[in-house]
Structure formats: C-alpha cells, structure tokens
C-alpha cells in the first residue's frame, strides 16, 4: 500500500509537473489513471492489504509503528512483520502496532503479512527516518507553588533527560490562565537542553495581579529540537493543568499589602470579600472596579505618583466595612555622591557622602548603607541618626595596621533597588589633622621663643607641615611654615626666632601633612611678650641755652619701642670738656630734659638710656653755638599738613642738620620739637601732629660744624594760612569838610592767622541807622574801595568828600587765607561855610537885579503893556458889522453857530473904541482857514491877539501843508489835540502822508455834516472814524468847546487852548503839564498820547 501511495504521489507529482506543459487534450489520460488506482485499491482491500503505516518516536531509540488493519480483519488476525534488511527481524503479533528499534537512516523495506482465517496477504512498505515523527512525552508538573507576598508562581517539573540519548535543545511552553473562565494571561517559553540525565526544571513568574485575587492555572508542554533526527518534530501534549488559589484568612482582605513600588509604575489592587464592594479609592481618588471571580474586585493604578511618608492609602468600602492597604511609591537609592574618605588622626577613616535624590521612603523602607573595603574585606554599616542632614551621612572605618591603600565601596540599598559608589584612597595623603591643642609659648631669649602643641593621632610615619601665624600690634601679619616629623599622640616643639625684644606677639598654629590635603582648624591664640634687650640706640638729643645764657638745657626724645627694647627706666646725662667729665644723677624715665649750669666752654653732652637689661650707646651733642650775622627771617607756608624746608648744601657742615621749631607766640625757650637730618641732604619735610592751621611757627635750621651748631636760617611759617579773626582797630584822626584821615593798628599775630597781605578800606555815604555796608564785594558803584597792599601803611586820608555828610567807613585785613572781619565807623564831614555863604548871596543879588530891571522896563513900557494886557473892551452893540451879521443870522433860523461860513466873521479887530454894544464872546476866534487863503503869511505882528481855531472840517477842506505851518503856537497845540483821537497812527506816516488822512482828530460834529465830503476825501478812514459817536447833541457841541470863549462862562477858570475836552464832561484829557512837552509839527502821535488814547478805543 505504501508503495502504491508513494507511487501515486510520485505520479501525482509527475502529472502535476507535466500538467503545466500538457494540453487539455491529455486530461482524459489523468482521469483514466485515477480510475485505475481506485480500482486497484478496491481490489487490494478485497484481497486484505494493509495500509497507513505510521511511525512515531519519543526518544529516537524506539519507533512505534502502527498501521490500519484491512477490512474484515478482526480478532485473531496475526501479523508478521519483517524488516528486510535486518537479520532475524520478523515478528509475529496480533496487534496493529509494533515498537521497533530505530532504523538507520535510509529506506528500509517492511513486509507485513497478515494471516486471518488461513488467508494471508502481504504488504510492503518502504520506511525512512524522515517519515517518522518525534513527539516528546507529555511533561508533568512536579510542583506549582505561589509566593503571595510577591505574587510569584514557582513551577517545577522533570525534563526526563535520561530518556533521550542525545544532547538536545528543549523548548518548554508554559501557559498561565486566570479566573474560572480560564483567561490566558501569560504564554511563556523556556529553553533548556537535555543532558542525558533527568533534571528538575524551575520557572517563576510574577503576576501583575496579586495571586490572592483569582485562581491561576498553569500548564506546560515541550518541543525537542534534536539535530540528529531528520524526521518531523512535534510539540508534546499539554501537561495536566495545576492551579493556585488563595485561602482567605481572617483579616487581610486587600492585596497587595504594604507594597513598595517604583514611582510611575502600574499596580493592581484587589479586594477579596464576600460582601459587595461599593467603592474603591486611592488617596482622595475613586477608581473604577474590575470584577473578578466570586465577588472579588480589583482596581488598576497606572503611573502611580510618589507617596507621602506614611504611604498612599488604598481603601475598598463595602456596605458595612472598610478594607484597605498602603502602598509606598518611591525611588531606588541614588548613587551616593561626593563620597570622600579622610582621616583626622590616621586611626580612623571617616567616609562621608551625599545621598542624592530622596527616595521618598522612610522608616523600615529607608535606604541602608554599607561601606565595604575590598582589600581587607571588612565592612561597616550605617546607623541612622536623628535629624539627618546631608552632612551627617558619614561612616567611621577603623584603619588597619600597615595598610595605606583603601578601596571603599559604599552600597546603598532599599526595597526598590541598590546603588554603589567607590573610592580608592591612599590614606596618608588624606590627612586633615584635628586642631592642635595645648598650644604654649616659652621664651628662649629676647628674640626667640619656643612653641609647643599637642596633636592627637598616629603620625609616626609622616611629616607634618604646620603654619605659624605671628601677629604683632601695628604690623603686618606674618606666617611661617615649619615641617616636623610626626609622632604618635605626642607634643611637638618648634623654635621661632627673629622676633623683636619686648614686643607682644600673638601666635597660633595649624597643621597638615607634608603631602598637603587640608589644613586643620587653627589652634587657640596665645599672646606672648618677648623679654627685654639693651636699648639699641641712644636717645635723640638737642640742647638750648637758657634765656640768661648760663644754663644749658638738654632735651631728648623717648626711644621708640623698637629701639628701647624694653621699658626705659632712667637716663644718664653727662657733659665732658677737654678737661673734665661731669656726670649728672640718673634722671627717671618720664623726664626728658636736664639742665646743666655751664660756662661758655665747649662741652660735649652725652645722654644714655637705661632699661632693666642695660644702657644704650650714648647720644652726644656739642654745647657750642657758632654765631651767624647774616641771618634773615624768611616766610614759608606748608602744603597739606607738612612744611617743606630747603637749603643750599654747605660743605662746611660736617655733621648733621637740625631743624627745630616752636610756636612763635610762646615764650622762651623756643622749642617744640626738632628733627635731625644727615649733612648731605638739602631739604626736609617737617611734619608734626602738633601743627595747627593758622598758628605761626618759627623754624630754625642749624648746621653742625666742628662739634658746634650754627643757626643758618630762620623761617617763619604757617602750616596753613587762615583769614584773620579780628578786624584792624582803626580810628579817625582828622576830619575836614572834604576829607577824613583814618589810622589803624596792627593785628596781633595770634589773631592774624596768616601773613598779612593788605587791607581793604570801603567808604560810602550813609547814616548810622540806614546805611548798611551790604555786599562789599558785589561792586556796588556807590561804595568806594581802597586796597592797601603796603602793610606798613597805617594811615589813610580819604579826600574829595562832601561837607557835612555822614560817611560809613569799613576796614578789614586779609591774608592768603582769606578776608578778615570788618570794622565799620560812621563819620560826618565838617561843614563848608564859605560855599554856603556864596550859595545864599548870589541868588539874592540876582533876584534884586532882575527886580530892578523889570521895574524900569515896566515903567517905560507901561502904555504898551496896558494895550497889550489890559485893553479896553469895546461894546459889541456899537459894532455895525455885528449888527449886519445879526440880521443875517436871524434870517435863517436853521443856521447855527457851527455854520461858520456864512455867518462867522473871519477876522475881528478889536479897536479901542468903546462901544455900548454888548460883548460877543467869540469875537476873538480867528479862523486861519478863512484868513490864510488871502494872506498866506505868518501871523501878523500887531497889537492884537489872534487866537486861531482850526475846525477840522475846514482843515480837511483845505489840505495845504503851509497852512499847518502857519498855524502858530495855537495851531501846534491843536494838532496835538488831533493826535489824541487818532489811534494806531504812526508818526512817520502822518508826516509823509496826506494831511487829511493824517488828521487823526475827527470831531464828532463832522459826522452828520460833512459825511459826503469825507467819504470822498478820507475814503478808508470812514471806518475808523465812524466808530465813535457822541452821545451828546452834535449841534450843540461846539458851544461847549473848551477853546470857545464861551467856556469861560462856565465858571471854569482853566482855559487850555487846544487841549482836548470830553464832549460832555469838559474835563481835560491831556494834563496841563503836557503843554510843556515838545510838540512836533506833523506828529500826531506821542508816547503820552498813546496811553491816553487807549481808553477811548
């Protein structure tokens, strides 16, 4: 059958291959073959042929072959199976399968002869390993356990490797199902190898859901991947399922309990409860419930946030109860940062570190630290202390003998993980000693001391480097480094030299090692006074002869501390001449001068300072003073607080120069201080705290020659000049009518406060009570100033003054430092009597003379005067001309006074004729307008008075410039009146332009009468003039004209020709004095007018 099968397959393949190439015409051939095959099959069945020989193996050693019995074969059928190429390999059996040893690779012919009811049929099969399937045995789970605390399943099974002859790879497939509904939650593979022996295999799996929440089922199968086997390999069957479930205990209902997880991870909580869970919440937040088997519920938390110290609470609430758990979300420990190991004493190593990022886990979940030293294999554990700060993370490690290199690893660990930091140190290079203690100072001599201190620690093998800080008052701090060999727990000793005797020093010390790592802290400070030594120099001396010249006073300065080298107890002064040496008694310290009675011989004075240790070298000074006749007093002023003195080099001066100075106002002896300078110098700066500005000092420069001193220069000077504080005291010596002689006194030196440079003398007219000499420097013109720079001048005569006048005098002194205060005085000059007499007599004489001449003239011209000033007034009624005119006037009642053309007589000469005709008041009115066309002449001289009145109407009608000129005095006045009413007119324009246009004054009366004429003549001026309208009746205006003779009737005695008058008030608009002001001929404008016009605009 097998033959047939393979033959058929082969044929099918052939057919299949050829089918591609054959045409459809061959399809019938294929159908024929199929038919033939089927017939053959049926025949063979009928004949009892075997079929479907299949072989499988589970260990590659034995094949289990089976076949299908022929139709009709039943119980009692015997099969004889023979393997052709194997000797004696025929087996008789009654079942349809046989286990045979594995055949070698290649084809093997198998003959199976079935005997049934004496009928036999034989089948042949070709068997090859390739046709054999490898199906491993079904594995069996040895054990399935659960670690509920970690939600981990542990699975164990036997791989049965002993059954398999070859080393082979095995793939295990494990499936985990959850809940009763067998939801697949995990399908894992696990690879092992078979080693020919049985081995128990383990596999663990951690569930994302607590194992308590639901039943978990586990199954396993395997697949052997044997390279030696060429047949088909198949998975084994699944093992029988094993399951894990949790038996509820009394209390715990929510899982997992007290779990520590990483921030940001996901976690599932479940509640195992018989009661119905109503609500689940984590912290404040409610969570959706996931239903599990048997009323259990779960919640899933994603990306959990960091917990507080007490953890995050998860609570499930039922009708009557409440269950919960706490979860701690935190971080694994950060790598310890800044791990540093050092020692203070080479006995104990201190390793400190910074824990880095907080883990958010406290209490039992906190990070634990272990410090491990790899060379020695020793370790120490960190004990947590209260109130941890970053600085307090440190561990102590005891040093090991003879070990200098240490390799430390600091392990940090918490429930979420671990981390480590390492450091390799040579501990002898990481020494930071403790602060030195028991620090002491001892004297060696006056310039050296011994310092000792104690340093705890085992420094026997190293050298210590120590820094000594030396502080001296008013001096720069000094540091000295010393290297000392280390010892174990002992004191150290060093000498410090080059110190000053009798000086207070402050010492302190700190140490490190020669291979510097860190300084220790400073030790305590120690103050120490070094011992005394003999004074290094003699005192600086000077001598002065007393005022009577009998005694020599020796002065010396106290030695500075660095030269005294101790406390100066006394001084020894001695003087020696060629013959003898005289020694004075000891002078105790605070005293720095001595007086010796000497003759004028040459003596050498020596001064020695003594302290408790000894005496200083002597300071010597000669008593002799060499006279100097050529001596001038010079002046000098300091700069800042110093004064510079210079002199020429004098080769005769063999020893030194001495400058002494004193306050000039003090009495003898003049000695404030002195200064010695070497003989080769030519200048020095004198500086003293005692110098004050404004005080005069005397400086004396002495040169030393042949052991005697000669005064070379005498200088008066100020450190700084100031202004005098008093004014010079001055008096008036003499006063005349035009001069004053003033005298003043010197200002005392103390109050001058500088070199006097001069005086300033001010004077002005002024009374004591009213005049104040204010602003003397402001350059007032009425103040006269005299600057007296000749300081020897003590008087001043002021001339050219006015007699009997009070003068205010002021005197002040000045220096380069400024002006001193003023002193003032009031002086009245004497009266000038001659001038007064002349001033009275001359006017009286002139007045008398004028009176006499006037009287004579009046007498001689009395007739003319009478005619001129007091003519007889004729009676108008006797005038015929007037009578005629009267009739004319009466004949036309419409004509009024203003209509002068027909009725006004243009010229009236008043004769001496006395007439009975009543007076006509306007007879004196002269109209030049009417007259001038006839005469064109100047005002005619005569014994009559022609008072001209020039009404503007007429003037406009006769625009002749000549007329204006002929107007005379009265005309000028009138023009001025015109200008009063000509606002905004410019003088130039008036002079140049048409007189008509320039006639600013437009009497109101002209408006109704000559409007037509003006319209043509004036033109543009209409607008200007039309603005003013008299409120009064223009017809009667002329009657009250001020220049009308009628105005005299109105009880007014003021007659002002030409002065403009208000039309209804008669008040003069121009003040009378304006009549005196100069009047320009054509000028219609004046400054006064301008202001007076304003109100009329």
């Amino acid at each position: 059958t097998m033959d047939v099968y393979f033959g058929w397959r082969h044929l099918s393949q052939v057919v299949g291959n050829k089918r591609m190439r054959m045409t459809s015409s061959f399809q019938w051939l294929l159908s024929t073959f199929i038919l033939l095959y089927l017939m053959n099959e049926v025949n063979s069945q009928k004949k009892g042929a075997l079929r479907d020989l299949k072989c499988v193996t589970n260990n590659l050693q034995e094949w289990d072959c089976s076949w299908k019995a022929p139709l009709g074969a039943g119980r009692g059928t015997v099969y004889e199976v023979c393997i052709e190429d194997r000797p004696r390999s025929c087996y008789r059996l009654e079942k349809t399968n046989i286990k045979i040893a594995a055949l070698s690779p290649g084809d093997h012919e198998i003959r199976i002869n079935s005997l049934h009811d004496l009928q036999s049929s034989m089948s042949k099969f070709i068997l090859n390993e390739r046709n054999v399937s490898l199906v491993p045995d079904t594995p069996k789970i040895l054990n399935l356990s659960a670690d509920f605390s970690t939600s981990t399943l542990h699975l164990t099974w036997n791989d049965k490797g002993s059954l398999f002859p070859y080393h082979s790879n095995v793939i295990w497939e494990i499936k985990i199902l959850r809940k009763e509904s067998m939801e697949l939650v995990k399908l894992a593979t696990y690879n092992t190898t078979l080693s020919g022996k049985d081995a128990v295999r383990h596999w663990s799996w951690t569930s994302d859901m607590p194992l308590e929440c639901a039943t978990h089922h586990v199954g396993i199968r395997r697949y052997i991947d044997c390279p030696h086997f060429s047949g088909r390999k198949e998975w084994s069957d699944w093992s029988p399922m094993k399951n894990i479930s949790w038996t509820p205990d009394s209390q715990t209902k929510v899982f997992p309990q007290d779990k520590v997880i990483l921030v940001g991870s996901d976690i599932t909580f479940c509640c195992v409860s018989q009661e119905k869970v109503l609500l689940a919440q984590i912290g404040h937040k409610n969570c959706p419930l996931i239903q599990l088997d048997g009323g259990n519920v779960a919640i899933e938390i994603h990306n959990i946030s960091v917990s507080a110290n007490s953890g995050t609470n998860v609570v499930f609430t039922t009708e009557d109860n409440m269950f919960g758990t706490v979860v701690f979300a935190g971080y694994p420990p950060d790598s310890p940062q800044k791990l540093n190991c050092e020692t203070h004493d080479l006995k104990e190593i201190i390793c400190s570190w910074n824990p880095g990022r907080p883990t958010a886990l406290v209490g039992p979940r906190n990070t634990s630290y272990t410090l491990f030293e790899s060379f020695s294999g020793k370790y120490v554990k960190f004990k947590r202390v209260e109130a941890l700060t970053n600085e307090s993370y440190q561990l102590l490690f005891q040093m090991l003998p003879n070990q200098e290199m240490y390799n430390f690893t600091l392990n940090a660990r918490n429930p979420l993980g671990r981390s480590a930091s390492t450091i390799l140190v040579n501990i002898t290079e990481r020494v930071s000693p403790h602060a030195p203690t028991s620090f002491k100072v001892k004297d060696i001599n006056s310039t050296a001391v011994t310092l000792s201190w104690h340093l705890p620690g085992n420094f026997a093998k190293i050298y210590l480097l120590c820094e000594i800080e030396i502080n001296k008052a008013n001096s720069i701090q000094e540091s000295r480094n010393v290297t000392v060999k280390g010892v174990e727990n002992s004191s150290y000793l060093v000498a410090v030299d080059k110190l000053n005797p009798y000086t207070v020093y402050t010492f302190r010390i700190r140490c490190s090692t020669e291979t510097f790592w860190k300084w220790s802290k400073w030790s305590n400070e120690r103050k120490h006074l070094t011992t005394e030594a003999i004074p290094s120099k003699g005192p600086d001396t000077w001598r002065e002869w007393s005022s009577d010249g009998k005694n020599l006073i020796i002065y010396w300065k106290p030695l500075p501390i660095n030269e005294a080298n101790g406390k100066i107890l006394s001084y020894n002064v001695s003087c020696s001449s060629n013959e003898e040496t005289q020694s004075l008694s000891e002078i105790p310290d605070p005293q720095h001068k001595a007086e010796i009675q000497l003759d004028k011989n040459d003596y050498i004075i020596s001064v020695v300072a003594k302290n408790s240790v000894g005496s200083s070298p002597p300071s010597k000074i000669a008593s002799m003073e060499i006279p100097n006749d050529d001596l001038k007093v010079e002046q000098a002023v300091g700069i800042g607080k110093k004064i510079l003195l210079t002199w020429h080099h004098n080769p005769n001066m063999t020893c030194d120069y001495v400058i002494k100075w004193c306050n000039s106002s003090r009495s003898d002896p003049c000695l404030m201080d002195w200064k010695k300078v070497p003989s080769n110098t030519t200048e020095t700066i004198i500086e003293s705290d005692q110098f004050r500005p404004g005080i005069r000092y005397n400086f004396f420069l002495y040169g030393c020659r042949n052991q005697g001193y000669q005064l070379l220069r005498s200088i008066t000077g100020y450190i700084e000049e100031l202004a005098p504080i008093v004014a010079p005291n001055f008096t008036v010596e003499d006063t005349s009518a035009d001069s004053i002689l003033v005298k003043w006194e010197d200002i005392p030196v103390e109050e001058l406060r500088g070199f006097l440079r001069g005086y300033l003398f001010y004077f002005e007219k002024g009374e004591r009570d009213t005049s104040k000499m204010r602003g003397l420097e402001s350059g007032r013109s009425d103040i006269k100033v005299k600057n007296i720079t000749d300081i020897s001048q003590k008087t001043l005569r002021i001339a050219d003054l006015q007699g009997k006048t009070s003068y205010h005098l002021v005197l002040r002194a000045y220096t380069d430092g400024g002006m001193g205060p003023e002193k003032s005085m009031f002086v009245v000059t004497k009266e000038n009597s001659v001038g007064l007499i002349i001033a009275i007599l001359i006017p009286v004489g002139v007045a008398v003379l004028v009176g006499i001449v006037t009287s004579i003239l009046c007498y001689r011209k009395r007739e003319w005067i009478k005619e001129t000033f007091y003519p007889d007034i004729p009676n108008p009624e006797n005038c015929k001309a007037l009578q005629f005119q009267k009739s004319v006037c009466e004949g036309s009642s419409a004509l009024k006074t203003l209509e002068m053309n027909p009725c006004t007589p243009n010229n009236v000469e008043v004769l001496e004729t006395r007439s009975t005709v009543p007076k006509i008041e306007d007879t004196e009115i002269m109209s030049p307008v009417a007259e001038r066309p006839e005469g064109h002449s100047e005002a005619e001289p005569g014994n009559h008075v022609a008072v001209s009145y020039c009404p503007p109407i007429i003037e406009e009608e006769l625009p002749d410039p000549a007329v204006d000129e002929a107007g005379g005095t009265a005309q000028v006045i009138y023009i001025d009146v015109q200008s009063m009413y000509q606002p905004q007119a410019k003088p130039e324009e008036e002079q140049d332009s048409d007189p008509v246009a320039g006639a600013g004054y437009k009497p109101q009366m002209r408006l109704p009468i000559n409007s037509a004429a003006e319209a043509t003549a004036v033109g543009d001026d209409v607008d200007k003039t039309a603005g003013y309208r008299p409120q009064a009746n223009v017809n009667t205006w002329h009657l009250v004209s001020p220049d009308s003779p009628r105005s005299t009737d109105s009880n007014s005695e003021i007659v002002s020709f030409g002065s403009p008058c208000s039309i209804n008030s008669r008040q003069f608009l121009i003040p009378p004095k304006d009549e005196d002001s100069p009047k320009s001929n054509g000028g219609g404008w004046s400054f006064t007018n301008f202001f007076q016009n304003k109100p009329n605009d």
Partner: protein
Amino acid sequence: MSHTKKKKKIRNRAKKTCEWAWRMGLLKLRRSCGSPSHSASLWERSRARPARPPAPWTSEQLNYLGPPFNEPDFNPPRLGAETLPRATVNLEVWRSLNDKLRLTQNYEAYSHLLCYLRGLNRQAATAELRRSLAHFCTSLQGLLGSIAGVMAALGYPLPQPLPGTEPTWAPGPAHSDFLQKMDDFWLLKELQTWLWRSAKDFNRLKKKMQPPAAAVTLHLEAHGF
C-alpha cells in the same frame, strides 16, 4: 427661665470652660471654642458623630496618616481599637456621674491613651514625627498630673490598675500598615473626644465648686499650666 436664656447660659459656660481648660493646658481646644458643635450634648454625640474641628495636634497627626484618614467624615470600623477607652457616653449616665467617678474615668482614660501614644511613638517612621509625639506625650503627662492633683485635693484616691489590665501596645507582626493606621486613627479620635469631654467634666466640676474653686484652680495652675 426661658429657653433662649438657658441656651445662652450654656454657651457662656462653655466659653468659660474653654478658657479655663485652656489655662489648665487642657488642650488646644481653642478652635472649638464658640463653635455650635461645642454646645452639642454628649447624648447627641453618643448617637451620631458630627464632624468637628479637630485639635491642632491631632489634626496634624491625621494629616500624616494621609487621605482618607484626614477627611472629616471618615468613619472606619474600630477593629483593633476596641480596647481604647471610649469617651462617648449616654448623657443621662454622664449627668449621673459623681465627681469622683468623673475624675477617675478621666484619669484612667488618659493613663491608657498615654500608654498607647508612647507605643505609637516607638513606631514613628520619621524623627520629626517622633519629636512631635514626644512633645504631646509630655503635655498629656502634665494633664494627667493635673487630674491627679485635683483628685488629691478633693481627697479621692487614685485608681490602681488591676493586675492583667495593664494596657499594652503589642501589635503582631502581621499587623499591616493599613490596620496600624486604622488603630492610630481611632487613638487620635478617642483622644480628641476625651479632651473635649474633659473640658465638659472640668467645667461641671468647677461650677459645682465655685466658692472654694479658687484654691483648686490656683493649685492646678501651680502645676505649670
């Protein structure tokens, strides 16, 4: 006396009590002074547990436990807290208590609570929490001394702990953090209620002993409150 006047009087007394209790060091009940819940009767409290502002320290501790323990309406089952002395009592029973019983109950309650608090202190995870707890224990110890002082002044003997009834704090190793928190919660709650009840008790005691109260008060104040 009208109902309104009665209410007013009660309120005034409550206020005075608070002041008095404060002087005694009885607690940081300042927040509850003058609040409406303060005048609620014990009888009412025995039935329902209205939310009331907690004392500052207990509030701080409840905050440490985290939500929902610090929520005002959180009311979990007592579980392990059954052994804690209960402050709630029927109003009639409370009224019927005599001074000796009243003081004795206070003394016993605070003795137990103090013991529990000390147990709590041992378990505190952080140093800060331990310090805070230790400070409060010292204060409570002072209060206990004050009560003992009052009892001594009135001639009442101090209650002796019966053998075997010594309160202990020995949670088993299986005690989970959550159950521990539940116990802590009830300890704090009971402590809070006891402090409130003590204020009432002492107020009543003070009122009854008004004439000679000055001496008692002075004596109490001399204890350092």
